[in-house]
């Protein structure tokens, strides 16, 4: 496990993956989404995670803000089905691209234990930024600090990225239950 994780380093190429798309059911690879784009943002995501709910408007507005980048959400939480994810997507009027990662296999390869966790890469899938979208404050909070957006701005301007890594926080992709397989 440690050896696998060692593969993911800044300035090196991220693993490609091909997964089934939510809604259409067709296969989609990360490299396909990068075609004709300057780079991409991958966000590990869950249909039950309350933090992901917070970023619905942020992610829905991503394509409009950054037409030169692609966005791909990867629904990785253990126990979520394509049906449960689709119902969350419909209910929350989510229209950003999403693929289904059964059992969180890609998440594990990408050293991701919680949702949401964002990765910024260039067109060659070179890792540029890894971590939280912001410091989990609301934008109107005086203590709000964005992480992903400043990294994107610097990348698009061709500047070095000041902060390449932050600790991500959110909901665990795999909740480990002892005693209670289900609480309710």
């Amino acid at each position, binding site marked *: *496990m*440690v050896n696998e*994780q*060692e593969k*993911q380093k800044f300035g090196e190429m991220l693993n490609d993956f091909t997964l089934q798309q939510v809604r259409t059911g067709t296969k989609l690879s990360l490299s396909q989404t990068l075609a004709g784009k300057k780079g991409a943002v991958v966000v590990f995501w*869950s249909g*039950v*995670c*309350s*933090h992901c*709910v*917070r970023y619905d408007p942020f992610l829905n507005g991503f394509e409009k803000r950054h037409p030169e980048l692609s966005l791909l959400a990867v629904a990785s*939480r253990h126990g979520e089905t394509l049906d449960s994810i689709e119902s969350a997507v419909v209910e929350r009027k989510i229209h950003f691209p999403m693929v289904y990662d059964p059992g969180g296999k890609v998440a594990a390869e990408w*050293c991701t*234990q*919680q949702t949401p966790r964002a990765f910024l890469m260039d067109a060659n899938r070179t890792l540029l930024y*890894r971590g*939280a979208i912001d*410091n*989990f*404050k*609301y934008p*109107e*909070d*005086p*203590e*709000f600090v964005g992480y992903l957006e400043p990294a994107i701005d610097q990348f698009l301007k061709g500047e070095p990225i000041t902060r390449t*890594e*932050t*600790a*991500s*926080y*959110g*909901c*665990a992709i*795999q*909740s*480990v*239950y*002892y*005693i*209670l*397989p*289900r*609480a*309710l």
Partner: protein
Amino acid sequence: MNPSSNLFSRLSSALLETGLVAAQTALGAAQRTVEQISGQTRGPAEPIPVDGPTDMDNAVSDFANRVARICRYTPLDVSQISAASGEIIEAARRSFSFVDIKDAHYLGFPAQLAISVGSLVTQSALRGLAAWEVMGSSRMPLLARDFVEMFTEFPVFIGLEYREAIEKARQRVRAVPGDHKTRLELGQMLVKCGLYPDAERELLQVPDNSFFYPTAIYEASIALYRAGRYESSARAGVEALNADPSNERARMNLWLTAQKLGGYPKFVPPTHRMEVVAGYDKPRVQFEDIAHKIGLDKTAANRGTAIFDYDNDGYLDIAIATAHGGISLYHNNGDGTFTDVSVGSGLDGCVEAFAITVGDYNNDGLADIFVTRFGFYAGHGHLYRNNGDGTFTDVTAEAGLSVWGPAFAASFVDYDNDGFLDLYIPNNLGSLFERKVPNRLFHNNGNGTFTEVTEQTGIQTIWPSIGGAWADYNNDGHQGLFVSNGLGRSQLYRNNGDGTFTDVSKEAGVDDLLFGSPVFWWDYDNDGWLDIAQCSWSDHEDVIYTYRHNEGPPDGSPMRVYHNNRNGTFTQVQHDIGLTGCYGTMSANFGDFNNDGLLDLALGNGSPKMDRMEPMIILENQDGVFHNTTFSAGLPLTGKSHGVNLADLFGDGRLSVIVAAGGAYPGDLLTTNVFYPTTLAGNYLNVRLDGVVSNRSAIGARVALESEGRSQFRQVSGGSNFGCLPLEQHFGLAGATTVQSLEIRWPSGLVQRFENLPVNTTIRFTEGEPGWKDVYVKHSAAVASHH
């Protein structure tokens, strides 16, 4: 505490303890008998019940907790009864799924069930009585309400099942828009999830003529505060106090909001304001938060911290545990910055970690860690072996440590002085209805494996334990154990030196029945004998009283400081040294951050509740009396805090206060702070020890320092709470420019004495070797002046 109440509480604690022991052991023995008669077998060790309970006692607890949760999430309405009964039947099916009714082994089922229910009811009732005894009747209703709320909810929020609970509440208010109770609960759940705008929308729909309005508008003020909308929060806070002038929690939060706004806004009437007097004593050292400058501003539901040099480059690195996320490992670059090296370390995969404890269990010169997980919810701990290349390997199973329980802070200790670190794991209660999981002691076999020795050592307790602290308190060369119990009697175990322990709490005078929280040993008065600091968790109202009066209420429960009388007995002295405040302490540590030769305190406070944004505090020891200098020393209001730690991060003699903040609910996110002294308040000497015959980490070693007529005394600790202090021992020397002598008493029994030591440096001693070595080879003034 006056003598009569002390007598009463001792009497009660003895009676309660007898009852609890009977409920656990006598009824447990009856249970075993039925099992034997019916031919059921138990394994040698209790397996981790990943798929649900595997024995009657756990099944009964599980079922009771499930029913409590179902009741909690079911609206009080006749129409809901049939749905709820269906859920209860389903809960029973899940809890008792291990029972095969066709199997003849379960013929004794009715008898087992009766015994198990009986013992659980008895234990729960007695623990309720203990709570009553400790908190008093006036505090009990609020406490009971908060605890039932938290304990029924934790599994739901840890397991991410809040979506179902929220959906259920949403459907209910859609169907019955006048059900304001459910709407209030919906709003509260949304606050706990960090969805503040949604919470605000629901809470503000509760009409002001509703019985639930005062609580709803108060919760709205919390949602707005959390969203950073301080002025709106203050307006809601004013409304909350208009609706219920007795809501002291609203008054306190309005004060916190006012601090964010630079003072009370004009619209806050004088009746709603409060004057805070605690935290403004004159400080001798000022702090600046440098977390964002050095890359340690981790925002999360942070918990335990451990500060240790994992790569032996001399600089102290930091690990921070987090609810729902993995452990973050930060490498100290030695240039005043840290780099997040979690990914690839093997620690990033350890989600839901609670407290981290450091010790070199295999004596290979690399600091290893033991991590407890889940805390208030049963999980199992992990032992990570440090591979020396920046990675850690989970060796829990091969080390024989795969045990589960609601463990809090574990400790490394060499209790038998064989040169190998043993491991102590205290367990709390993991849910509302639960039997005590034993505190466990594991003996290190010296070959990478451990053997449980709990029973033969005699350190069992019936009380829910928060932490244990080990020390050679009677200077006999053996490590004794003080156990701090949450809602229980404190316990001191004397190490008999033959692998057994004797509970000497009563004769030592340390058996108070209290809501104990973190504990550590320290020599606060520099007399060469280790004293006890045991924190206490006080409810919100007592804390608010403390903020207004700079001391706790007369019947409150401040932290206990037990002075070591050098004859096996202790005397409570907290009232004599200024430690009279009541705080909701969840984490505590000590260190001489003003470098005056006297140990100071840092307390991390709060509770899991979202409205309990109780700041951490520092208590500066000024000439033997502690002063709360928190706000005047420049510590901002950071909210609840878990992993309080103190360390010299830059090798410059300034002891930073490191605070990992945050709480258990998904929405309870706060940012880690590093409060760095803006000046070097006095000279210092940092000392590190490498054991050779003794355990390599030298845990248990004692160091006595003499400088210009003043003695100081330290013991290297193997962890006792959410903040695992560095193994490095920091001595503040005030104006002294020479250190006459340093005496090291190694756990092996070797005593070494050194004379004429330097000041303002960090040096390392190796057991049995003459002289010392500098730790920071290239240490330059540039590093110290970096900030």
